[in-house]
């Protein structure tokens, strides 16, 4: 028993070192911009760079729009499939898993071929059109996470009986979705939203190939031309992702404690 625990600790220590040492190295390096002393100069340079503010702001807006589109697409679909077409669930799960196996670069080349300026729907011909295309691309990339989060949330409530109860009280489908279903899967939707946010903020391939001023290409640009700033940017990116993960944990725990109270 004791031997087992010893090796467990060794494995855990190795895992921690494997993940933490590069992070500590990056953090330490990002603080060494000023010779001989630790400083936050690299962070200051990054945060005061107008390109950082512009690209980060752009990506935040894109992430929020992607979250809205994702919710509008996924929540009614997952709800309807669970309610009326349960036999379609495996098919839908397969579809939503495809973005994990099809590389983003393949998808974006497909988009460019389909929606270029000489196509029937020339979305890439304007900045707004390309932004719309990028949002759809991001929505697709986030689909596996958003769908699973929402589907799990729907599985935790008796949607059929609640829908029928609301219908017998005269509610329309839209009213049921808005007032009954959505509030009861809000925690699941938030989990999906935070994951979507983390994915969109760091996404490079689609934004770069569609030539949009997103945070991902800015990360790459800084990384290719500067020394200390990319390390600071990497730490900032990690921090954003961790905040998102932390928020998922918070809402999940909140949901679990609420469920425990309900029992």
């Amino acid at each position, binding site marked *: 028993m004791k031997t087992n625990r010893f090796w467990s600790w060794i494995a855990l220590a190795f895992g921690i070192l494997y993940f933490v040492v590069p992070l500590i190295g990056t953090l330490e390096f990002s603080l060494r911009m000023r010779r001989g002393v630790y400083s936050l100069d690299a962070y200051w340079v990054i945060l005061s760079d107008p390109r950082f503010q512009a690209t980060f702001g752009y990506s935040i807006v894109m992430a929020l729009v992607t979250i809205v589109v994702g919710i509008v697409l996924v929540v009614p679909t997952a709800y309807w499939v669970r309610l009326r077409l349960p036999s379609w669930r495996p098919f839908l799960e397969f579809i939503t898993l495809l973005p994990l196996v099809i590389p983003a670069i393949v998808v974006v080349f497909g988009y460019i071929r389909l929606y270029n300026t000489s196509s029937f729907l020339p979305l890439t011909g304007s900045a707004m059109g390309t932004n719309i295309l990028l949002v759809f691309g991001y929505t697709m990339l986030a689909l596996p996470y958003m769908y699973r989060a929402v589907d799990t949330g729907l599985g935790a*409530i008796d949607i059929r009986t609640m829908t029928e*109860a*609301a*219908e*017998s*009280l005269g509610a329309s489908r839209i009213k049921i979705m808005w007032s009954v279903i959505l509030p009861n899967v809000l925690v699941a939707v938030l989990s999906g939203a935070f994951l979507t946010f983390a994915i969109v903020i760091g996404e490079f391939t689609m934004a770069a190939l569609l030539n949009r001023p997103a945070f991902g290409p800015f990360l790459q640009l800084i990384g290719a031309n500067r020394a200390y700033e990319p390390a600071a940017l990497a730490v900032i990116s990690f921090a954003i992702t961790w905040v998102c993960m932390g928020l998922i944990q918070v809402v999940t725990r909140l949901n679990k404690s609420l469920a425990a109270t309900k029992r």
Partner: protein
Amino acid sequence: MSFLTISHLKKSFGATTVVHDFNLDIEKGEFVSFLGPSGCGKTTVLRMVAGFETPTSGKISIGGQDVVNLKPNQRNIGMVFQAYALFPNMTVAQNVAFGLKVAKKPQAEIDATVQEMLSLIKLDHLGDRYPYQLSGGQQQRVALARALATKPQVLLLDEPLSALDAKIRVSLREEIRAIQRKLGITTIFVTHDQEEALSISDRIVVMYEGKAEQVGAPFEIYNQPSSRFVASFVGTLNTFDATVRDAAAGIIAIDGKDVMIGQKITNHKTGDKISLAVRPEAVSLGEATDKRETTLDGKINSVHFLGSVIRIRASLGENIVSFDTFNNPSAPPPSPGENVKVSLAAKDMLLLGQ
């Protein structure tokens, strides 16, 4: 003309027909129970009335209007489900107000109706609670108030007491009946619990394999079952194998002993093997004291002491009979294996149809 009419209703799922040619007329303000075992089609009929299932054929009309093609939210029907189905994100008051808000009633009217409904179910002090803060019985009362708030023309109750413990079940069923009487609302109550159906219904529809086996008042269903299924499903029943000795005089032989059943046997001739049923209350321990009773020799199989009553199983030749007797502190119950006399009230024997 009846308020709610169901005629020639049929429902099939693929090749399986779960409801066959179901017909029923319900008067305004009547409390009708659908009683039957699981899978007999009672909930399917209820769901077709609610609009959650579309009939394969047949007609449902409420207040003279054919509702088959109306969506559930257009039928003005209140429904209470076994699983309560309260909206977890809303307080008790918000749950009750939901249907009124959907109907876009003025806020003052909504507030007044919510208060009235909460008083009706005696939960006016719990309006701000969430469903998870209530007991099962309280949740179901809120579900009832929510269903009644919109003043539906028909109230449908789909096994609303099944998830509750025995004591709450009894008190809540009486409460439901009292509220139904007070409001005079036409109600259909689905249950598989015969005691529930017998105790609160104006009429009972006993269902079996998608058909209405018998429709009648509780007294009638219990005392004059029209089929072997109804007789065996409603109440405890002892069945006997017997031989017709004289069909015209109503004499049969049970275990070789002649018994007068007090009615002509019309569907069988002398010498036929028949089945008879007798309720436990028509069986007693000891010699017959009434000339309309028959005494048979029996042997005690088992004795279960249940407090105020003692449940006895005894063999009468080839037949087994089960009956209850009141506890008498000065007369101990018989012991298993003891030979006893058992008397049957022959006039209460039911000749079972095949």
